[in-house]
């Protein structure tokens, strides 16, 4: 059985996801010691700008004709409305070269071997439902359920799946939900207009559970630890990371936080990119 990590990176005009993926891959290799592959729609960009990348294989996909945009924040005082290419994730079953795949967002920074042990499990599907916001007292209800009265929220940021008939059906469902997004967002009373993999996965898990609270998805160890795009990554040294997290309701004010040995989803992609480029994300 082959095991490896798969990272998705499709650049837009503002964010170099490929750069983030190169960084995420080096972390995955360092702490998990597994092969890492990249799915991108611009292999040329990777080869020209990051020739020393550590990917074991690069899978090129055609750019999607579908376009959606969303607001990307860079701290609490700055934001940019830009393209968001998140359509390919549902094809992961067909794209992965591995029998057991750890799928990672390019902005997920690994600082521990925690996920390696999860790769030794034989559960078909492991994903995070619980999360931990590094900012104190911020409203996290959006990450509990897909809306206040609906089904539990799951993070499509990181998950592990086995290639088998059950998971084939799951990703077929995710693709079906994506193709019929307007219908499903209405059915599940989702107010956001944009398609989100987190929502599609949460709905598909709900359906795979027979529309009840079943055990189709097994919890990954620990919690999905994150900073929002209104926070900053300051720096990362070895397995330690320093952040400035937004003070709730005090725009432009931040609290300093340090983590040691925690994997962190750094949602402020601009800040992560600045850190990778110049050593400071502020």
């Amino acid at each position: 059985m082959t095991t490896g990590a798969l990272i998705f990176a499709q650049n837009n005009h503002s964010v170099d996801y490929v750069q983030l993926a190169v960084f995420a891959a080096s972390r995955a290799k360092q702490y998990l010691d597994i092969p890492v592959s990249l799915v991108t729609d611009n292999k040329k960009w990777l080869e020209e700008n990051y020739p020393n990348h550590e990917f074991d294989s690069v899978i090129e996909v055609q750019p999607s004709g579908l376009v959606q945009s969303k607001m990307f924040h860079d701290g609490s005082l700055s934001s940019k409305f830009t393209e968001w290419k998140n359509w390919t994730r549902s094809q992961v079953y067909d794209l992965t070269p591995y029998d057991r795949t750890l799928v990672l967002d390019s902005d997920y920074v690994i600082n521990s071997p925690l996920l390696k042990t999860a790769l030794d499990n034989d559960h078909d599907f492991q994903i995070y439902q619980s999360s931990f916001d590094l900012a104190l007292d911020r409203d996290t209800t959006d990450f509990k359920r897909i809306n206040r009265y609906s089904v539990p929220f799951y993070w499509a940021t990181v998950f592990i799946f086995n290639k088998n008939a059950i998971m084939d059906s799951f990703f077929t469902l995710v693709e079906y939900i994506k193709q019929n997004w307007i219908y499903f967002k209405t059915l599940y009373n989702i107010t956001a207009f944009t398609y989100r993999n987190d929502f599609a996965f949460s709905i598909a898990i709900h359906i795979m559970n027979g529309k009840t609270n079943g055990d189709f998805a097994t919890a990954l160890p620990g919690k999905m630890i994150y900073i929002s795009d209104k926070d900053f990554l300051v720096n990362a040294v070895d397995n330690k990371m320093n952040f400035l997290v937004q003070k709730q309701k005090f725009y432009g004010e931040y609290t300093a936080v340090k983590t040691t040995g925690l994997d962190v989803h750094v949602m402020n992609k601009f800040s992560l990119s600045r850190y990778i480029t110049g050593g400071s994300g502020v």
Partner: protein
Amino acid sequence: MDERIEKAFAVANYAATLSNQRRVISEEYKQKLVYYTNGSTFKVSPELIAFIKTVIELGHISDVPFLDANDFPVVIPNVQEFLDNIVSVYFEALNEYTVKYSEIKTKRKIADIVEL
């Protein structure tokens, strides 16, 4: 601004940072308590340690089924070894947590708490 007011705000900032950092090191501690064996996940706790110790005292020492953190059954071939391992995980995590907690307690500046 009055110097005393300014100092009060600085202290409030320090207190908020300290409080948040305590949350974070508590989460780091909880993550360290995750233990894997035979493809199963256990969250090590004093209750789990006490239960396994009781199981051994009752004479069940090999091929004993337990429920893991996800309520999936797993057969543990050597229960004494399992106990030794989780006790080790527990104290390693707790010792590290104790050290971190003591360290930040003595810091009087925000920069020192987060080692900026």
